[in-house]
C-alpha cells in the first residue's frame, strides 16, 4: 500500500498490524507505468482481502486487458483488514492502490468487482476510506467515476444509488470502450460527470442507474423503469466476448509474496454451461457457451508456467468435464507437466463424468478429497432442479473413488428448494447411508481405514435470471426445521453433517432480489461500521435486521413472498441473453418434474445465442 515516499512514514503502522505483507505491493509481474504518460488511471478494487482478491480470475484478466493499452494504467486496490482499517482511520491514511501507493482520489475511474452480495458493505467502506461520498448524486466533478461489475450487477439495484456506472456482462471490451470514451471527452474538453455518464449509456453493456426513474405500485411492486431521456436505452444488453481463442489472456500473473487462496495458474477452459440446473445463476447468465481450443489453452499454460514458476495448473469452468476436448487438453498438458514437476487440478467435477482415467491423470483428484454435488436427496427433486444425475451415477462415482483408494467423500446438497418436502430431506440422509454401504461392499483387505462421508447443506436462495427467480424462499423457521429434521435422520457416526447458516442465506436473498429501496439500509449499516459481511465472524444478522427495520424495508416482501409471474422484477431492464419465456418454460417443467437435456444433446432455445459467440453447441 503506501510506499509512496510523499506519504507519511507508516512502517511502524505496518509493524503493528497482522500480515503486513498484504499491504505492500511490489510483486513480480505487477505493471508499473509513469503516471504522467497515461491518460486514464484505473483503480480496480476488490471488496475483500488481498488474499481473496488476488485469486480472482476476472480481475487478473481485466488487469491485463487494460494495461495492454498504453494510455491506461490499471492498478489494484484491496480492502484493509479490521486492524489496518482502524490504523488508517486513526492516522488519516487514505485507501491507496497497491502499485503506485497513490490515494484513490488520484484516479479517473474506480471499479469494483462485485462477486457476492455480502461484499456490498465492504465496497462501500472502501469508498468511505477513499474519502468519496457514498451516493452517486453527492459526488462532485473531482471524484472519480465509480464503476461496478461482476455477477452481482445482474441485479445491482440494491446498490444502484452508490455506483455511477455498471458494466453488465464480460468486461474485456466494454471497459476499454468506457476508458476510451473518457479519454476522448477529456481530450476534447467535453467531459463533465453528467455528460460522460450520458454518453456512456450508449455503449452496449453499460447501465447508468441514475438515468432511470423507478416508480412503484401501491402494493410495493415495481410499476415502471423509465429512462430519463429518449436516447437512454430501456433495456441493457449484456456484453460477451465472442471468440475466446482470439480474446487476450494474461501471459503472466502477478506473483503474490503472501499466500493467496488460489496461488496457482488458472486456465479458463470455457465460459457458460451446457447444463441448465434451474437454481444456478451462473449457468444462465454466462451463456452462451464458448469454448477455447486445446491448442490455445496449452499455449496459455506453457507461457504462464514460464512467467510464473507455479507448480500447479488449475483448469476452471462451471463444469470442467463437459469440455468437449478435455482429453486433448489434458494429454497436451501432461506431455510436459510431469517432467516439469507441475500438477493439474480440476475444481469442479460432475458425478456422471467421474472416471478412473480422470483419477489417474489429475493429481488433485489423485491426492485431494473428493466432492460431489447431488444437490437434492431424491430423484423427484433432482428432476425438479434439472440436475440430471441419478443415484446410480453417484454410486458408480463413489465406487470408483473407493476402489481407487479414497475413504472420504463430501456431498453437497441444498435445503429449501421449490417443492421440497420432508421426504426429500430424509433422502439426503438415505443417500449418504448408501454411500457408506458402497464402501463396505469392498472386500475387507481393500479398506484399510474407516469411511467418512460429509454432507454439506446450503440454503436455497432464489436468484435473478434463473427459472426459480419468482420462487419464494423458505422462511427462516422452515429452514431451521428442515436442518433439525435432517440432523435427526442421521444416526451413523460415519456421516458428518454441516449446514450453512440460514440467517446468512436470508440476508443474501434480500440483497440478491432487492431493489433501490434497500439503499438506505445498506448506507446505514456502512455508516455504523459494517464490513466483511461475507466473513462469518463479521456477519451480524441482528444488525442487518435492525437496519432493514429502521429504514422501513419489509424483508418478507423479497424472500418468503415470492414474485408474481407478471410482476416487473427489479432486474427486468437487463437482458442477459436468456429470455423470460425460456425461464418460464423451465419453471413449468420444474413443477411437472420434467428434465431438460443439456445443450450438447439439443438446443432448448434459451435465447442466449442471439448474443453471438463462437461455439459448437448453439444453433
Amino acid at each position, binding site marked *: 500500500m503506501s510506499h509512496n515516499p510523499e506519504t507519511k512514514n*507508516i512502517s511502524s503502522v505496518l509493524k503493528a498490524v497482522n500480515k503486513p505483507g498484504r499491504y505492500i505491493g*511490489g510483486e513480480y509481474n505487477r505493471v508499473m507505468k509513469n503516471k504522467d504518460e497515461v491518460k486514464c488511471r484505473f483503480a480496480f478494487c476488490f471488496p475483500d482481502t488481498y488474499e481473496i482478491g488476488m485469486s480472482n480470475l476476472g480481475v487478473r484478466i481485466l488487469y491485463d486487458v487494460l494495461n495492454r493499452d498504453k494510455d491506461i494504467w490499471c492498478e489494484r486496490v484491496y480492502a484493509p483488514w479490521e486492524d489496518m482499517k482502524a490504523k488508517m482511520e486513526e492516522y488519516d491514511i487514505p485507501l491507496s492502490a497497491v502499485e503506485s501507493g497513490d490515494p484513490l482520489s488520484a484516479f479517473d475511474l474506480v471499479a469494483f468487482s462485485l462477486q457476492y452480495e455480502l461484499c456490498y458493505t465492504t465496497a462501500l467502506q472502501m469508498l468511505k476510506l477513499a474519502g468519496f461520498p457514498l451516493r452517486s448524486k453527492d459526488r462532485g466533478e473531482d471524484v472519480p467515476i465509480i464503476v461496478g461489475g461482476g455477477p452481482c450487477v445482474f441485479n445491482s439495484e440494491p446498490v444502484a444509488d452508490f455506483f455511477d456506472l455498471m458494466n453488465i456482462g464480460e468486461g474485456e471490451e466494454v471497459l476499454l470502450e468506457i476508458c476510451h470514451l473518457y479519454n476522448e471527452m477529456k481530450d476534447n474538453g467535453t467531459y463533465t460527470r453528467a455528460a460522460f455518464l450520458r454518453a456512456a449509456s450508449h455503449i452496449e453493456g453499460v447501465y447508468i442507474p441514475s438515468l432511470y426513474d423507478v416508480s412503484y405500485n401501491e402494493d410495493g411492486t415495481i410499476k415502471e423503469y423509465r429512462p430519463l431521456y429518449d436516447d437512454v436505452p430501456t433495456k441493457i444488453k449484456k456484453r460477451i466476448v465472442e471468440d475466446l481463442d482470439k480474446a487476450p489472456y494474461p501471459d503472466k500473473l502477478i506473483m503474490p509474496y503472501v499466500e493467496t487462496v488460489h496461488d496457482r495458474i488458472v486456465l479458463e477452459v470455457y465460459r457458460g454451461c451446457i447444463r441448465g440446473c434451474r437454481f444456478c445463476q451462473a449457468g444462465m447468465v454466462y451463456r452462451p457457451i464458448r469454448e477455447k481450443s486445446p491448442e490455445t489453452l496449452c499455449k496459455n499454460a506453457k507461457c504462464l508456467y514460464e512467467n510464473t514458476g507455479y507448480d500447479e495448473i488449475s483448469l476452471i469452468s462451471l463444469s470442467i468435464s463437459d469440455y468437449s476436448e478435455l482429453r486433448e487438453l489434458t494429454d497436451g498438458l501432461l506431455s510436459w507437466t510431469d517432467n516439469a514437476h507441475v500438477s493439474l487440478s480440476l475444481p469442479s467435477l460432475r458425478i456422471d463424468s467421474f472416471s478412473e482415467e480422470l483419477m489417474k491423470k489429475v493429481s488433485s483428484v489423485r491426492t485431494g478429497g473428493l466432492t460431489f454435488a447431488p444437490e437434492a436427496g431424491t430423484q423427484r427433486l433432482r428432476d425438479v432442479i434439472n440436475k440430471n444425475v441419478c443415484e446410480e451415477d453417484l454410486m458408480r462415482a463413489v465406487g470408483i473413488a473407493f476402489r481407487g483408494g479414497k475413504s472420504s467423500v463430501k456431498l453437497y446438497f441444498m435445503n429449501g428448494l421449490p417443492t421440497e418436502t420432508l421426504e426429500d430431506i430424509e433422502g439426503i440422509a438415505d443417500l449418504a447411508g448408501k454411500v457408506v454401504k458402497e464402501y463396505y461392499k469392498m472386500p475387507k483387505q481393500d479398506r484399510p481405514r474407516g469411511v467418512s462421508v460429509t454432507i454439506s447443506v446450503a440454503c436455497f436462495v432464489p436468484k435473478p435470471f434463473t427459472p426459480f427467480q419468482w420462487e419464494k424462499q423458505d422462511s427462516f423457521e422452515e429452514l431451521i426445521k428442515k436442518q433439525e429434521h435432517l440432523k435427526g435422520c442421521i444416526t451413523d457416526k460415519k456421516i458428518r453433517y454441516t449446514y450453512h447458516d440460514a440467517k446468512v442465506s436470508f440476508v443474501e436473498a434480500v440483497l440478491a432480489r432487492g431493489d433501490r429501496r434497500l439503499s438506505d439500509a445498506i448506507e446505514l449499516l456502512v455508516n455504523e461500521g459494517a464490513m466483511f459481511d461475507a466473513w462469518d465472524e463479521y456477519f451480524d444478522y441482528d444488525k442487518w435486521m435492525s437496519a432493514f427495520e429502521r429504514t422501513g424495508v419489509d424483508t418478507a416482501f423479497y424472500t418468503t413472498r415470492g414474485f408474481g409471474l407478471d410482476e416487473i422484477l427489479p432486474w427486468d431492464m437487463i437482458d442477459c441473453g436468456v429470455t423470460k419465456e425460456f425461464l418460464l418454460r423451465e419453471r413449468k417443467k420444474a413443477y411437472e418434474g420434467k428434465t431438460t437435456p443439456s445443450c450438447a444433446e439439443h438446443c432448448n432455445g434459451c435465447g442466449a445465442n442471439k448474443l453471438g459467440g463462437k461455439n459448437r453447441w448453439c444453433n
Partner: protein
Amino acid sequence: MVQLTPQHPYVTLRLKFKKVGSLQYISHLDLVRTMSKIITRAKLPLWYTEGFNPKPKMIFAAPLSIGTESVCEFMDLRLVDDISPEEAKARLNANMTDEMQVIDAYYTEDKLTELKWLSYSIDITTDNASVELAQSCERALLTDEVLVKKKAKPWEEAPTVNIRPLIKEISAELRGDVIHIDAVLSADASAFLNPEYVVKALRSACGILSNPDLTKEYYSIMRTAAYKADMSEFR
C-alpha cells in the same frame, strides 16, 4: 568443479542476496515459497529431492523476522549441472524485483551452520533524540545484565532472560535526529538473538518508542554482515 557421481548427485550453489524495503514485511515462510518460484522461472538446472513428491532443495541461513531488512541473506541451492555462478546470478536477478536481488553467487562445500554472528544497524527515530539519549542507550546495552521478557503463549508466564551474553559488540550514537545502533548478535542456531529484543530492552530501559502515535516514533533494522565463530567474514 566437483564431478557429479551417484554419491554426489548435486553441487551446492550459495547465494548471497538482499531483501530490503517493503520486503521486510514478508515472512520467512513466504520467502521460501517465493524463492521456489523464482528458481523455477530462472530455469536453473535444479536437483530434485527423491521420493513421492520431488522438490528442489533450498536451505536458508538464519531466517529473518518480519520487520528486519537485510543485505546479507544466504541460501544454498542444489544443482545437477554446472552453470556459471555469474549466469545463475543474472538469471535469478532478472526474475526478482529491485527489493530482492542476488549480490553474490558461488559454489561452495562449506556449511551454512558456520555462520555464528550477524551484525545489524538499528535506527530509532524519536522526538527527543539527543547525544545523552544515545549514550544512555549504549550504557543500557553494555551492563552485565540486559533483561527482556521473551515471547510466550497467552496462557504462559513470559520468562525473563538475560540477552547480554548473546551480544558481541554494541555501540550507539546520535545521527541527526536518529539514534543509530550497531550491534553484532549471536546467530548460532541454539542461541539466536532476534534484534527486536535489543529494541525491546531499550524500550524498557530508556523509555524510548513509547509515543502512542506510531507515525512519530519508529525504528528500522537492517542486517548488514555475517561472521564465522572467529569473526572472520562468512561467505
